[in-house]
């Protein structure tokens, strides 16, 4: 039987991240893992999450993999890169949330500097999802990391201007997030670009749903985004990011199930998104990272 190979008219923009060690994401001219179509110069990458405080909400099975390193963001980041082979580090400034420790921008900046010193892989920096506090903290941190070409997040339709301006002046890339709505995703990208922000420094996040918690919805929105991007829609032709780890470990199953449930949940969620065209997977458990990296290698080396 003859196989139908789709030819796409456009390509996904290529985003370069990092200063010491440089990583490129995106640049696809076809769909991942479809033989004959998958002209993807840059394979999907796995980032590991590091917090600026010990994550109390994490279940023991997840915490135990990192041991004492959880107490020091620098050590933690180094461990993820050296021991677990993370391609990028995602620093979450969780302690800055007013309901948490409400730490200041300066304190967050110090943590960021520490992490930057400890590793050479590119850095993703995200706030605590408290819009007003984020504006203050992220603007400060973006300046601290000036020239490091990080990926900063998370810009939303309701709150994108401060972060966009900060990233623009410090030369960082930005995560633009929409609540599983392809139109809002596009609108936000237009608004960000209207502020003279370069389109090839935007990474799309469609919110992430874990297995059983909305995965199919996010999956199809991501797939639609990718198809639209490949079909020539410039405002949707950005690489995509997914927080598969965070969402998986929030599920009841991962928290209360036996040892492996959470890991399996994270693998299942992450590998599904791999097929939807995700470019960066932000993950938590080292075992899940290992399995996902294996899967990426298998997929990309096949036939090559």
């Amino acid at each position, binding site marked *: 039987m003859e196989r139908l190979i789709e030819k796409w008219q456009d390509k996904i923009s290529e985003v370069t991240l990092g200063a010491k060690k440089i990583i490129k994401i995106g640049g696809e001219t076809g769909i991942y893992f479809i033989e004959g179509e998958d002209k993807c110069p840059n394979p999907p990458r796995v980032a590991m999450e590091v917090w600026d405080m010990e994550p109390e909400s994490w279940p023991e099975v997840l915490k135990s993999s990192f041991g004492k390193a959880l107490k020091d963001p620098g050590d933690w980041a180094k461990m993820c890169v050296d021991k677990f082979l993370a391609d990028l580090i995602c620093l979450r400034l969780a302690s800055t949330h007013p309901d948490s420790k409400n730490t200041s921008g300066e304190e967050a900046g110090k943590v960021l500097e520490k992490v930057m010193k400890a590793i050479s892989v590119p850095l993703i920096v995200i706030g605590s999802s408290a819009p007003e506090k984020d504006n203050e903290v992220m603007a400060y941190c973006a300046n601290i990391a000036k020239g490091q070409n990080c990926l900063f997040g998370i810009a939303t*339709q309701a709150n994108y201007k401060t972060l966009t301006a900060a990233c623009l002046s410090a030369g960082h890339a930005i995560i633009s997030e929409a609540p599983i*709505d392809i*139109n*809002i995703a*596009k*609108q936000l990208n*237009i*608004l960000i670009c*209207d502020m003279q922000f370069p389109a090839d420094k935007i990474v799309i996040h469609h919110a992430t749903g874990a297995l059983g918690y909305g995965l199919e919805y996010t999956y199809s929105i991501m797939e639609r985004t990718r198809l639209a991007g490949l079909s020539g*829609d410039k405002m949707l032709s950005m690489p995509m990011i997914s927080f598969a780890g965070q969402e998986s470990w929030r599920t009841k199953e991962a928290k209360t199930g036996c040892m492996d449930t959470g890991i399996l949940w994270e693998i299942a969620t992450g590998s599904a998104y791999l097929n939807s065209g995700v470019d960066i997977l932000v993950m938590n458990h080292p075992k899940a990272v290992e399995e996902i990296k294996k899967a990426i290698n298998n997929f990309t080396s096949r036939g090559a």
Partner: protein
Amino acid sequence: MDEFKITFFPEHKSVSVDRGTDLLTAALKTGVHIYNSCGGEGVCGRCKVIVKKGDYITEGSGRVSDAERNEGYVLACRTSPGSDMEVFVPEESRLGDLEILTEEIKAKRLAGLYTPVEEIEEEHYKVTSKIFKHGPLSTKIFLKLPNPTIDDNSGDADRLLREIKKHHKEINTIQMGLSNIKRLPRLLRESNWEVTVTLGNRNRTTEVVLIEPGDRSKENFGVAVDVGTTTIVAYLVDLNSQKVLGSKASYNPQVDFGEDVISRIIFAQHEKGLEKLHHAVIDTINTLIDNLIKEASLTLDDVTAVVSAGNTTMTHLLLKIDPANIRKDPYIPAVNFMPVIRASEAGIKINPRGLLMCLPCIGSYVGGDIIAGVLASGMDKTRDLSLFIDLGTNGEVALGNKEWLMSCSTSAGPCFEGGGLKCGVRAMKGAIQNISIKNNSLEIQTIGNLPPKGICGSGIVDIVSELLKNKIIDRSGKIKDNKICQVRDCDGIKELVLVVAEDSATGKDITIDENDIKNLIHSKGAIYTGIEVLLKESGFEKSDIKHVFIAGGLGTALNIRSAINIGLLPDLPEKSFAFLGNTSVAGAKMCLLSYEATDKADVIANKMTYLDLSTNALFMNNYSAALFLPHTDIELFPSVKKLLS
């Protein structure tokens, strides 16, 4: 039970009410009309009044600011008396002059509601070559009956019918009621066998409606009525000469019970709700007819027919039929094809035996006003693909040509009629209807060139287009800092000051805030997406549309360019657009004058496919894409793309 006396100022009208009665209801009893869009649910914040004296109980509302609360402002619908009270109703909370003077409005180009029929038909002739044959709903004929003899001995009634058929061979079956027959022997003999017979066209049979002595065939008049959700318009028509003798318009006082059809259907379920709604509309129609015949020096008996066009809910309320099922799944109205009845049965005061015809409806949310619109536009007669848009509260859209017709209702909201806006007003004197920004300053044009009172529908379209063009707002409708218009923060919402207090008629600043813009974006998005879905479902492209007919309250005052800029209308050459004004009353008039038009209305209603958007997945998806200025996909609006770049 305690009774309190409430006095409303400046009218100085008083009413006694029981404890627990809200001020909105109390005001209504005195005939003071207070603006409210939500039907007294405490949501819209339009019914602000100032308490001058007396104790009261009021529920807290975010709609009243702290500053206003200190001045004694309360929401009328959420406030009840605790003692006798004195209440002042400020200018901005009033419904405005109940009746709009036709002359004045005509002068102000508000053709949407008030153009004389002739103007509407000029447009109409452009697209239709064939006019309907004259054959009104009721015809008067003068008969000289041969005196009975021993040889010509048919009965009085038989004789009458025989003579009618002799003169009108096209009539096959003819009906006459008992009451007419009873009157006949005396009437014929007293009038020397010379009588005028009124023949009514009732559901394809002919009825002897009325028999009068002597020749009264010249005095035959009818009324065409548009029963709109917001406005009621009536034309007095000479059924012989086909001339319009006068037109009158008035707000639909049902607005007191809720601004949109859904809140009125809910209100109809209250105790005596249906009755109140019915009387509100009937009283208005009767007043309009009364004024029309007085001006034309006629008597009520000379009016023998009324044709009404209104959406399905309005038609139900006019006929006092419970509309409850219209809003309940599976959304079935009591009647779509309403038979011709006596006008008096519905409470309309014309000749007691006169007829009432309602234009047929298609479904719960597409009614006779759209049938009238399609009829008046003539879009069902040409091969060209035409689009019909009614910019009213329900935002109906129809697409088609002589082969097929498809329509949908987009629930655009009251925004185009000035509803749901912080400083919104209907298209009345002093309403801002156009603005332009030149040399970094704002130029404002109001209806009647009077001090501005607020913003009407066409005004908001124009304002948002200008703000977008001058980059004062971004494409999501968010206000940016700028040098042209003062930006300020009001309870956490950004607003632009368009007119400062000292220049306005209300003594308050006239502003537009981000919520107003969001409302407009939702309304225009709904209409545009309705158009998109109709095109998609019928397999046509935007470029296939040859004519776009626009009807409704903002009619000719609407700036087409602005409407395209904000993404309300598709980006087509401006020459494809035509204003038809109030097509609802125009269509009703056509049916009043011609049975051919009536038949055509039935054909249109039967032919039209109704698309329910509430269950349409494509609509929901495309709708969120349309919630941007002009649209998320700017490629759909190449002329706007050029303008903005």
